């Protein structure tokens, strides 16, 4: 709290208006008016120092820029999503279509090119082979259509039987490849285990 006599502050104020006060004296005057206990005779000039105080409090606002999506951006985001969805859908559709176009070749191969039939069946993806298995019952003779194929394989016509045999061969080939891959992975894992044991032996 600034305790100043009226005479003291009045004399200082006179010099202030003349521009003859020091910075320190001017700070004292401001502090006096800020304190609130203002002499009635000095009240008329109090707004001057309140104005200065308020002006001193003005600060440069630090704006936090927030990125908000404008309506136009929402439209573009939606368009991009749709485009992405359509592209993904087209890619999936294309893959399925390729599988479907390959499977009839594999199925028909025995008729057109007997010498290349094995290759065609082997190269067909697993999905295509499964697809072929689904198609096979359709080729079964109408007389035997209620009879399960696997329970009575001797009733299947020779052409279908040949196709099934080829499919089984292909599945066996795929299965053997998978086994081989799994064996290699087990072998690699055992090597890693052996490597991990080396430092432990040294430490021991």
């Amino acid at each position, binding site marked *: 709290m600034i305790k100043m006599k009226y005479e003291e502050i009045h004399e200082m104020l006179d010099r202030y*208006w003349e*521009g003859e006060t020091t910075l320190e004296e*001017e700070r004292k005057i401001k502090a006096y008016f800020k304190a609130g206990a203002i002499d009635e005779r000095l009240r008329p000039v109090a*707004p001057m120092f309140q104005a200065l105080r*308020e002006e001193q409090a*003005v600060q440069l606002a630090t704006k936090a820029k927030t990125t908000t999506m404008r309506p136009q951006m929402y439209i573009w985001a939606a368009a991009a999503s749709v485009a992405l969805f359509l592209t993904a859908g087209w890619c999936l559709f294309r893959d399925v279509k390729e599988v479907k176009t390959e499977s009839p070749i594999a199925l028909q191969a025995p008729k057109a090119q007997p010498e290349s039939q094995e290759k065609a069946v082997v190269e067909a993806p697993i999905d295509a082979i499964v697809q072929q298995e689904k198609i096979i019952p359709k080729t079964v003779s109408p007389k035997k259509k209620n009879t399960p194929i696997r329970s009575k394989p001797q009733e299947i016509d020779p052409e279908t039987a040949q196709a099934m045999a080829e499919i089984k061969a292909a599945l066996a080939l795929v299965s053997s490849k998978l086994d081989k891959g799994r064996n290699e992975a087990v072998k690699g894992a055992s090597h890693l285990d052996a490597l991990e044991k080396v430092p432990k032996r040294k430490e021991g």
Partner: protein
Amino acid sequence: MTWDLFHNQVFPIRHKLYRFALRITGSVHEAEDVVQEVLEKVWKTAPEQVGNIQNWEAWCMTLTRNRSLDKTRSQTLRRAAPLEGVAERSSDTATPAQATERNDLVNRVKMMMQQLPEKQRLVMHLRDIEELSYDEIAESLGISLDQVKVNLHRARKSIREKMIND
């Protein structure tokens, strides 16, 4: 300009620069732009020039003044109202009527300050709001020490007379 120098000497006075720019332009947006441009210019100060600058505050004030005057002249913006962004305050002990009257008086003083001739307005701002020494004011505004004193005296006297006559 090194980061340390900028961080210690220039960045802390950004509010002063803003108030000074606001005093001249009278526009919050213009003042913000001025401060942005001044800080950018100071940051890009050539190393050989850095050594020649003794008083960074005064130099920045000069840049702010020049940039603000350029903007003001180009857009002929001049505001006769109290500065934007100044919060109105009222004393706890005053009645609403007294507080309103006091705020009116405070706003009138702000308006009086803003209506002063340019040199008086800037000298008074740098002395009474930014509390710069006469030497720093003279350096910032590119005027003599005597001109600083004369303009300050005239500015204060003008406001006092208007307050008494109101």
